């Protein structure tokens, strides 16, 4: 298989991603609906105004971590469904390389995450969110995409380990725990054991990446953030490779 033919395969995988209604509704529409339900009634929230942050801006940033995390892990659910249909066995008797297979799955995850980001930004803009300076939008987006590496890999790993039926509860549970401990819903404060535990999670730094949108410094991570994301990234990618190998008996 040449690089060009791999491109055709990936093109159809991406096409399938955008056509998947279930993933679209749960991974993309759900965070947006949640956003409007929470943010729209609080447009004139005075408490947050004191800090120079409007409620729509605060909740847009809050939901960014949660929404992109769900979107990035959504490939896992589709992998589990494909395995159940026996499709992975069919793929294994083709010249498709594991490299192209992973590339297609990771790109699908990122496509979902990017659409999720764009939808949330558009929703924020519609409720009057403005960031200063304007390049904060891009810095925030860039850092979020980096922070999603472990989640995209984790989604693929779970897709190869779990059955289609257990995928829904597992995804719901894992994203909730990551979001909760990562400070998506309640800020993580102090320096005790609990705070350190939270700061050891990639979701904490995913949430922090969003803080650029709340007027944080240009690098809200520092070396600790980069290191944490790098370690989680390496571990989750290794986990995904192991899960794929265990599932398919391939290297």
């Amino acid at each position: 298989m040449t690089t060009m033919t791999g491109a055709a395969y990936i093109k159809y995988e991406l096409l399938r991603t955008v056509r998947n209604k279930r993933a679209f509704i749960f991974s993309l529409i759900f965070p947006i609906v949640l956003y409007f339900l929470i943010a729209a009634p609080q447009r004139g929230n005075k408490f947050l105004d004191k800090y120079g942050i409007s409620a729509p801006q605060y909740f847009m940033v809050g939901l960014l971590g949660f929404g992109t995390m769900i979107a990035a892990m959504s490939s896992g659910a589709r992998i589990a469904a494909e395995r159940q249909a026996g499709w992975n066995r069919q793929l294994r008797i083709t010249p498709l390389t594991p490299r192209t297979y992973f590339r297609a799955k990771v790109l699908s995850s990122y496509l979902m995450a990017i659409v999720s980001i764009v939808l949330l930004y558009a929703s924020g803009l519609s409720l009057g969110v403005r960031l200063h300076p304007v390049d904060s939008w891009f810095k925030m987006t860039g850092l979020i995409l980096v922070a999603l590496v472990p989640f995209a890999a984790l989604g693929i790993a779970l897709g190869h380990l779990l059955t289609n039926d257990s995928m829904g509860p597992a995804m719901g549970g894992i994203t909730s725990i990551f979001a909760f401990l990562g400070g998506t819903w309640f800020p993580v404060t102090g320096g005790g054991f609990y705070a350190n535990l939270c700061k050891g999670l990639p979701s904490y730094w995913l949430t922090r990446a969003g803080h650029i949108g709340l007027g944080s410094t240009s690098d809200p991570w520092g070396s600790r953030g980069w290191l944490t994301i790098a370690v989680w990234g390496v571990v989750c990618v290794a986990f995904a490779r192991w899960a794929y190998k265990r599932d398919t008996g391939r290297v």
Partner: protein
Amino acid sequence: MTSTDIAESTTTGVHVSGLTKSFKSPQGPVHAVRGIDLRIDVGETVALLGPNGAGKSTTIDMVLGLTKPDAGRIELFGRAPADAIAAGSVGGMLQVGGVIPDLNVRELLDMMASLYPNPLGVTEVVELCRIDDLVGRKTTKLSGGQTQRLRFAIALIANPDLLILDEPTVAMDVEARRQFWTTMRQFATRGKTVIFATHYLEEADEYADRIILMARGSVVADGPATEIKAHVGLRTIRATLPGADVAALATLPGVTNVDTRGEAVILNCSDSDTALRALLPAYPTARDIEVTGAGLEEAFLQLTGDETEEAA
């Protein structure tokens, strides 16, 4: 490698030797395949015939590199299965399997074609498999039989030198089956090697040059269809014979076992001619005599001795 080996490797499509596979089960190990040796030439169409649990699917999975053998060697066109698959020389239709959603039939075929170095065109496969009525349909909107036809088209689009079909006609109606086999033969005439698993003697007889008969994880017979048919084409003598002594009937030459249905006796025979010649003088009151070919299942039971299935 000697010159004979080289000459052989160019004409041998599939070479399997000492292939063995067991699975763990709560009841202890299940010996699915117990040491199989096969040599299939390029261009041959071979049926793997056997009842459920004969080891056909396990053998096919190992040939396709989907299951790792406990022991034995497999070569496809002189190469390891993984290498032959990577080169795009193999197309397969597995026993169980669906297709992926969110594409229509044409798109899925195009996607699969993109994985192979030398695929057939989508239009050609659609024509060959006669699925032009399905091309615009979503893959999730197909019936069981239509899905099977699409899966066959996916196997063909590789333009493989070796086509492996594991009980391909399972969900098809009579007309779809007929069409399926017509397409398979059309494809086979292009010099392709075809292996298909089936538990229907008629399919094996009609569409294969050669039948490999498997039972309980072993090859029990291997030869041209006519020869195998004679081998398993055992006959049954049925006659009305009130008050017959079953034990005595079983001792007649050519009779392998005896059953009764009311006043009728049923003699399963390895040689019905001899059995009939012995039956008539010994039991002159026997009437309504019928001689019929036995079903494949009965034939298997005779070949394999007993019906306790050890293999899954």
